[in-house]
Each structure stands twice: as C-alpha cells, then as structure tokens.
C-alpha cells in the first residue's frame, strides 16, 4: 500500500502470526499489550485444549500471515535486487539468483517475500524443494512439473504446444504425471549422454513455453541437498536463459537457496555453482546476520513495539543476529507467564535452537509430541497416510494433531495438487525442527522407529526405494538396506542421476560384511565403475574395476568369465579415454590398457575362448580393435582392422544382430584409419542398410548408420552423397532430440559445405553451432569448435574480417578450454 503500518496494525499482525485470536477488535492507542496479554491466555488455552481447533478455511488471512511469519527485516537491499532481476527476466533477460547463508538466516523467508511479490505482479511462481533424506532423483523438478500440469494436464500440454516427445521425457522425470497426462509412448533409446541432454532439453522447452505465456519465477529451495540430476537441469536452464541465446526467450528468474558450509549430509553443488560463477550465469546474494537495530525491529514484530532495550540486547546477544534463533527466543518468551519482558535472565529460555524447538514441542499434548516425532523421522516433508499408518493414529485424530501443530507453527500443509495417492502432504516449517526432534530420540528408539517406518512405506509405497533404503539403513537391517540401496542406485542410473547412483552403491557396499558372498561386492564395484565410465571419470572407474578384479582371483570358469568381462570393459574405457585425449595426454590411457590387453590376448588365444559366450567373444574382439586404433602408441591400424574383420565375420555368421552394428562401425573406423576409404564406404553402406531394415524400431542404429555413411562418403570426396546422409542424420537427431548426434552431424555437414564452396548454406549453420555452444558444456560440444572455425574461414574469404576473427577466437577458446594451450594440441587441431 506504500504506507508504514501503525502501532496497532503491527500489534495485531504479531498476534495473528502467533496464532492468537485478538480478544477485542478495538483500536486503543496503547491497546497492544493488554490485547496481547488477553490473547496470549486465549492462545495457550487453544493450543492445550485438544479438539478446540479452528477450521483452516475460516481464517484464510491468518494462514496468509502465518505463511509469512514475521515481517521481513534487514533484507531491503536483497529484496530490491531480486525485484530488479525479476524486471529483467520479464524483459527476456533470464538469470539465476542464489540466495545463500547459514541455517536460520532467512533464505526461505526472503524467497517467500519474492514469491508473494511476483505473484502479486502477474508472474507465475513454481516451487521445488530439496530434502536431505531419501528422495528420488529430480524430486524438486517433479514438484514443479506437477504444478505446471496441475488440473487438466492434457489441455495444458495442448495450450503450450508441447509434443508427446517432450511429455514422455517429462513423465520419465516425474512419474506421477502419468496420472494426469495419460500413457505416452516412450521415446527412442539413445546413447546415455544424448538421453540425458534430451531430458534436460525437455524441461527447458516446457519452461520456455510456460514463460512465453507468463513470466515465471522458478524457486528451488535447499539446493545444497539437490541431486545431480536436478543440478544438471538447473545448470542447463541457466545457460538457456542467458540473453542472446538464439531462440531462448526465457522470461525466467530462477531463485536457488543454498546453505553455506553444509555438513556431510549435503550433496555437492559446488561444481555447479562454480560453473555459474565462471560463465556469469548467476548472481549470489549472501545473507548476513542481523544488526542489533534489525534484531530490535524483528523482536518488536513479535513482542510489540514497547519491548525493553535490555531484552532486545539479551536476545541479540544470544541469537547472534540469526533470525530463526531470534524468532524462537521470541516465541519462547511469549509462552512465559507473567514475565516483565525486560530481561531474559529471569526467564526459563533454552540456550540452543534445538532446545528451543523441543521446548515448543513439549508444550503440546503428549500424543501430538509423539506424532510429530514420527513425522520428523519420515523427513522434513511427509504425507498424512504414511504418518497415520506409522503412528497408528486414525485420520480424525491425526487431523486435529496436525492442526494443532500448524497453529504452533511447527508444520504447514504443502499446497500442491495431489497426484496419485490420496494423502495430503505436510512439511515442517523449518528444516531444523525435524532434526531436533529426531535427535531427541535415543539411538535404540530411532532404530526401532525407522524399522517401523520402513515396513509401513514398504506396504504403502513399495516403489519408493530411496525412502526404503534410507529407513532400513537407519534401522540397521543390513539385508534390506543393501537390497533397497541397490535398487535405488539402478533407478538413479536409469534417470542419469549418476552421483546419486554412486552414493546408493557406496551405501550398499559399506553395509557388506564378510558373511556376504564376494560376488555381491564385485557386482556393486562393477556397477560403480560402469557409472563412473558414463561420467567420463576414468580414474574412478579404473579404481573400481581393479578392485572388482581383485575379488575374482580363482581359476573357476565363472571367475574367468568375470575377469574377461572386466578386462574388456577396462580396455574399452581406455579407448574412449584415449580418443577423448590429445596426444600429449594419451599415455595415461595407454598405461591402463596394457595389462587388460595382455590378459585378453592371452585368453583369446586359448581353447576356452572358443567355448566362451559368443557375444562376449565378439565384444572382446571389438575392444581389441578399438585398443589397436585408439589406445596403442603408436596405433596399430592393421591389427585394428584384423580384429574388427573377425568381429564382423563372427557376428554375421552367428546372427548376433545386437553387436553387428558396433562391429561394422569399428571396422569402418579401422578401414578409414588404414586409408582404405573406399572399403569404409562399403562397410558404412552395409551398416546403414541393416539399420534401415530395423527402421523406427531402432532410430539410434539408423542415426549411427546415417552418420557413419555420411562421414565415409565425405572422406572420399563424395560430398553430395555425404550431404544426403548427413542432412537425414541432422533431421532425425532433431526429431528424437539426440544432441550429441545433432552436434556431430552439423559439424560434418559444415565441412562438406566448406569444401564445396557453398558459403551461404555453411554460414546458416553458424547460429545453431553457437546455440549448441551456449547451451551445453564445452566438454560435451568440443567438436563445435571445428564448425565455428569453418564458418570463420568462409567469413574471412568474404572479407568479413572482424566476424571471422570473432569466430576463430570462439573456436580457439573452446580448444584451450578442452585441451590447454596450443603447444599441447594434436596436429589436426591446428586446422
């Protein structure tokens, strides 16, 4: 309204927020204290009287006030900055704002204020929250997507012009959307990295559609607990929202709250925040502790304007300027009977946040206290059905308990639509509350309670493997904890949330004892290594593969087949590692490959190899071929071709259609390496013909076939033929959102056009290449630098010197970022 509230208004506000009902509706000049006194007695009676519960629907204003808690103090500058960034976002200059600070410093409070202001000013607000305890990957995004498609989800999808391709990936991230959007055909399987980017792009496209309709505020709370999948999407969106990104137009402000110096419980978003800083994607607003003047203002909001300066000083001294601690002290003071409000010395005020929270809880009836402890065990957020089942409380009694807890500002209802499941969701109003409650349980009791919680969740939500792993670990039930942690790892891996997958595998492995079979530990280590490989973390993958190898040292047939498989994987990984490295750094991969190669060549020559599983034998041959081509120093082109030929012959003669395309691809690479370019054209043509037979059933194979055929024709100077295949590949990759294939196809097409002197169509590729570069990390779009360099050449030949220089600088910067200074580059890079 643009005016400062009067004393009476402030006092009334404080009463309402405390949950007091004003005794009289008069505006006596000094009526604040008398009204407060009378109202406090009324509030205490209301809280202590079971069943005397006011219906939520009759006090909507109280709810609104309660949701805002106390007035926002000491955050004018930060709020103003947030509002300015919002204005920029409305104009299409998207940004990320990170609000950071210690626990209780008021990050959520400030965020709520921003959310309220944005809503009141015509913006759309979407909120996701991260939690410390066992949550599924992408849980905050699932919340947000649920809010986007709330109500008639299909109508929303139509209105936003979202294709079934995008919706299918949205359902993958948020399975609960299936009940709203209905059954959707799954998207084509791609290489893991391409699928990951496609998922990210799906969220980005949904966000773009929403923000085109209405400028949007995206909030992700407690991002220090975010899983790697959520962080990946956040980073991708931040890049997309940058001004100047072609086709972005995201009228989006993302607000992330982040707790500084978090404990070991927290995930590690530091790499993401570091990316934000280096790419200037985000602005950070650190929140400082309150000054003594600000504390006085906050205290006045709770205790009235006439609180004594000595009391304020005492509170400030104890709380050290932390707003949450300050509020807890104020709440404790308001519960003190007949106090003079001059000094804390004569009051029985606990000295720690934990004690204060417990003191507040312990003022509630015993049944409420116990139920709240059950709720705390379930996590910061919980649903009423699970709480009812685990606490043994019926629905009616639970409703009263939660209403009482709500009036005591310990919990609040989570206002999002129910999607699947009938229970309402609630959350503790601050993360420190459930922590304090759980810590108040003894260890033995915690174990028993976690077991009961696990058994309840197992009955009600058997697919909630993350929660089950969480509870069974704390219940000290090794067998079930290992099983569920393993399932949680598989689930996380399927969603490309690799950090979470590793974490769950490590949890399972840590629980293994000498009584468990070695094969179980070996399996976990191998899966761990496989995931590290997918993340291009070669050293970590190698460590796990070697640890797994040490566990299969016997001469049994089973152990031998495991050893072959592990060595084959290490050899393949070394080839990927080497292919991704410049010459100066290939030695590391070569060192890894040596023992694996020796083991496989020895096995390959033995009789037992002939009897081995055919598919494994073919894979070993492919691994040996790639090793010869990419890892050995110097490369052995002939050996690579020989191994690849044998793999192809074996795959064709045995009808191993699943490995034949890979074998043909490797053979084509070997032939090109041997300068047998015509032979490579034949091989690639054969590969493409096989892929066309599978058609829509396997678009990934078709895409690989088109790219290989395009490159093979390019290598022999048959540019028109190459362009036909590359155009098809680029089109198909766009349709199925395969970013990696799109990037590769675009770059090869650029090369064709350069060599054909078709400068106009070449320069039309400049915008999509730059777009790729902006949207995706350099490590995954490195080849884009060649495309940009080709465009730079054409610009130079047309006399557009500055434009050419800019493009060449872009290409150079990408190369330096990937490979270091030019003296480390391979010869081909210097083109």
């Amino acid at each position, binding site marked *: 309204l643009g005016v400062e509230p009067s004393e009476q208004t402030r006092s009334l506000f404080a009463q309402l927020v405390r949950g007091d009902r004003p005794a009289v509706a008069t505006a006596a000049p000094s009526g604040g204290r008398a009204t407060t006194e009378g109202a406090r007695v009324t509030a205490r009676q209301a809280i202590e009287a079971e069943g005397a519960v006011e219906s939520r629907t009759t006090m909507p204003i109280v709810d609104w006030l309660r949701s805002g808690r106390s007035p926002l103090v000491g955050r004018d500058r930060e709020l103003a900055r947030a509002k300015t960034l919002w204005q920029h976002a409305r104009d299409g200059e998207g940004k990320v704002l990170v609000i950071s600070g210690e626990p209780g410093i008021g990050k959520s409070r400030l965020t709520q204020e921003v959310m309220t202001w944005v809503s009141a000013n015509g913006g759309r607000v979407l909120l996701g929250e991260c939690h410390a305890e066992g949550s599924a990957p992408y849980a905050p995004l699932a919340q947000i997507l649920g809010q986007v498609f709330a109500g008639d989800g299909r109508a929303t999808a139509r209105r936003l012009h979202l294709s079934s391709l995008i919706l299918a990936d949205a359902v993958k991230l948020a399975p609960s959307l299936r009940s709203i959007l209905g059954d959707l055909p799954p998207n084509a399987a791609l290489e893991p990295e391409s699928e990951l980017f496609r998922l990210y792009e799906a969220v980005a496209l949904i966000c773009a559609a929403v923000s085109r309709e209405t400028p949007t505020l995206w909030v992700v709370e407690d991002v220090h607990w975010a899983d790697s999948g959520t962080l990946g999407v956040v980073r991708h969106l931040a890049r997309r929202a940058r001004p100047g990104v072609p086709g972005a137009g995201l009228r989006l402000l993302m607000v992330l709250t982040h707790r500084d110096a978090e404990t070991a419980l927290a995930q590690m978003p530091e790499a993401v925040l570091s990316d934000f800083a280096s790419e200037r994607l985000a602005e950070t607003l650190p929140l400082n502790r309150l000054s003594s003047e600000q504390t006085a203002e906050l205290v006045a909001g709770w205790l009235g304007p006439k609180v004594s300066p000595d009391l304020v000083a005492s509170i400030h001294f104890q709380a050290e300027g932390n707003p949450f601690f300050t509020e807890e002290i104020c709440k404790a003071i308001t519960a003190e009977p007949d106090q003079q409000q001059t000094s804390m010395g004569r009051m029985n005020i606990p000295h720690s946040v934990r004690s204060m929270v417990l003191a507040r809880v312990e003022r509630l009836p015993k049944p409420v206290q116990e139920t709240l402890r059950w709720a705390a065990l379930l996590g910061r957020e919980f649903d009423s059905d699970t709480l009812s089942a685990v606490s043994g409380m019926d629905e009616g009694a639970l409703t009263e308990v939660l209403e009482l807890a709500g009036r005591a500002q310990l919990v609040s209802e989570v206002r999002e639509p129910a999607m699947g499941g009938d229970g309402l969701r609630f959350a503790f109003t601050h993360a420190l509350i459930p922590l304090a409650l759980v810590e108040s349980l003894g260890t033995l009791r915690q174990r028993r309670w976690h077991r009961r919680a696990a058994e309840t969740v197992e009955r009600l939500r058997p697919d909630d493997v993350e929660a089950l792993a969480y509870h069974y670990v704390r219940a000290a039930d090794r067998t079930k904890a290992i099983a569920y942690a393993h399932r949680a790892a598989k689930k996380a891996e399927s969603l490309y949330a690799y950090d979470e997958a590793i974490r769950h595998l490590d949890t399972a492995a840590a629980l293994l004892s000498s009584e468990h079979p070695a094969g179980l530990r070996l399996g976990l280590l191998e899966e761990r290594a496989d995931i590290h490989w997918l993340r291009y973390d070669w050293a970590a993958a190698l460590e796990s593969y070697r640890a797994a190898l040490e566990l299969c040292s016997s001469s049994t047939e089973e152990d031998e087949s495991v050893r072959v498989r592990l060595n084959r994987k290490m050899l393949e990984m070394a080839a990927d590692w080497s292919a991704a490295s410049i010459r100066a750094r290939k030695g590391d991969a070569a060192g890894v490959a040596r023992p694996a190669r020796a083991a496989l060549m020895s096995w390959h020559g033995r009789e037992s190899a002939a009897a081995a599983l055919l598919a494994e034998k073919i894979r070993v041959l492919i691994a040996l071929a790639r090793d010869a081509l990419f890892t050995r120093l110097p490369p052995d082109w002939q050996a690579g071709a020989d191994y690849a030929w044998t793999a192809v012959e074996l795959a064709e003669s045995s009808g191993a259609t699943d490995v034949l395309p890979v074998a043909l691809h490797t053979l084509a690479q070997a032939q090109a390496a041997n300068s047998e370019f015509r032979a490579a054209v034949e091989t690639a043509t054969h590969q493409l013909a096989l892929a066309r037979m599978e058609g829509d059933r396997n678009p990934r194979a078709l895409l690989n076939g088109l790219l290989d055929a395009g490159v093979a024709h390019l290598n022999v100077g048959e540019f028109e033929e190459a362009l036909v295949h590359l155009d098809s590949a680029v089109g198909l990759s766009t349709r199925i959102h395969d970013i990696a294939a799109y990037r590769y196809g675009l770059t090869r097409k650029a090369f064709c056009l350069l060599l054909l*002197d078709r400068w106009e169509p070449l320069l039309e590729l400049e915008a999509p290449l730059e777009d790729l570069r902006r949207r995706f990390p350099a490590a995954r779009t490195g080849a884009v630098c060649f495309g940009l360099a080709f465009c730079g050449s054409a610009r130079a030949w047309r*006399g557009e010197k500055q434009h050419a220089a800019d493009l060449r600088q872009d290409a150079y910067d990408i190369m330096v970022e990937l490979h270091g200074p030019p003296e480390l580059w391979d010869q081909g890079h210097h083109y």
Partner: protein
Amino acid sequence: MAVHQRDRDGLARYAALVEGESRRCGHRLYEAFAHRAWGVLHRLEGELDPSEARLQRAISTFQRMGTRWQLGRTYAELAETTLARPDPSAAKVHFERALALFEEMGAVPNAANARQALADLG
C-alpha cells in the same frame, strides 16, 4: 598453405603425398588440389607447359564439381602462368574469369587482388 605462401619445399613435399592418397581412394577434390599445387610448383621452377597442363586438369575437376571459389583461385594461378610466358592477353582472360567467379561468390579479398592484377596489365 604452401600454394598461398609459394613455399617450394612445402609444395614439393605435400603435392605428391596428396596426389597419391587422393588417387588411392578416388578423392577428386583433393586430387584437383594436388594438380593445382603441382601447377604452381612447376611455374616456380620455370616449367610453364607442365604448369599449364596441371592447372587445366584442376580447372576441369573444379568445373565438374561446381566449386566456384577453387575454380576462381585456379584461374588466377593459370593467369600467372600465362603471364610468365609472357602472354598478357591470355592472362587478362583468365584474370577476368577469376574476377567474375570471385564477385559471384562474394570473395572480396580475392576479387580485389584480381582487379589489381587486371589494372596492372592495363
């Protein structure tokens, strides 16, 4: 690069390599590059007939492939060879062909060089 810099050693080393590899796999464009490289090297060595023959073979390939910039550059090299005979009227024709192609392509620096060469010929 060796052609552009009139690097005789570089031309001698790479022209043969490129010609051999391109013939092996039937890479017509690279073979044309090799012919042009040989054409420039022969001219630098004072061997004008072989130079003209090689450059004409390159022109033939670039015409078939429709690579107009490469064609223009090769006409410019042919003009230099005919100028070296000396045959300024033939050189003028080749420079004019080169200029037309460069202007069509929007190859501003090359077009400027061709115009200057024509101006120098009077």
